[in-house]
């Protein structure tokens, strides 16, 4: 499916996340993270488990944008130019930022260096 706007937005969100300018937050669901973007627009990235028609377990991902409780856009690998790897990268970046993983790893590295 061709959706130039969705692709552009996805790329912009991933770039801005890498720069650390988006504050992702954890939710009550272990596999969902969200952030408030200007607008205000809520962006959330979620992964879930499902079984395909061959009986194989899959873990699809989707980035959703909502405003005033209405879904504006859903970015999945169905959008031309959006790869599963790209969505997985954004999910991992959001997770790490939301849970403060990098800061904790840095602290641990510091402690390990003292041993």
């Amino acid at each position, binding site marked *: 499916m061709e959706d130039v706007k969705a692709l552009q937005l996805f790329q912009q969100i991933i770039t801005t996340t890498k720069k650390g300018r988006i504050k992702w*937050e*954890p*939710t*009550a*669901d*272990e596999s*969902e993270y*969200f952030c*408030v973007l200007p607008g*205000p627009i*809520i962006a*959330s990235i979620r992964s879930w488990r499902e079984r395909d028609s061959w009986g194989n377990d899959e873990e699809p991902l989707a980035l959703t944008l909502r405003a005033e409780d209405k879904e504006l856009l859903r970015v999945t690998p169905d959008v031309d130019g959006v790869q599963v790897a790209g969505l997985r990268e954004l999910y991992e970046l959001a997770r790490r930022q939301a849970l403060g993983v990098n800061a904790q790893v840095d602290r641990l590295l510091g402690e390990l260096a003292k041993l």
Partner: protein
Amino acid sequence: MFASWASIGGLIFSALAFLFSKRASKAAEEARDSVLARSLGQDMNEANRTAAEIVRFVSMERGDMALLRVGELLNEASYSMTRWDARLPAQSKTNLLRAREQLLSIHEVLTRRTLPELSSAQKSRLAQSCQQVNLIFSEEYGTAVKAADRVG
């Protein structure tokens, strides 16, 4: 001669009347702002109490009661965001949106499974999310009270 004194007196009287009406209108405006600020504070206080109840119910593993309060707080948050849209600072609007997003995820988790069915990691994540909502409403309550104090 008398006419010119009368006109000067009239002028002074008009100036005084203008001054008093200005002061009265300013006082009325301040009183209105004060009532509105207190009312915002009351709304945030109630939301803060409901959020604290959610934390308590989740820690007591009373998912059914927590779910009821989450529904109530979602309504309260939506009401506050609409009711106080013109008066809330940008940061407060963002905070209320963040709280609503957390509440939606709490609602989803509590609807999908009962609390005893959750793993300890899932319970911990749920508890953190509830605590985050409570924290946001506590801060917003504080901000509203501070604004009310400033207004008078």
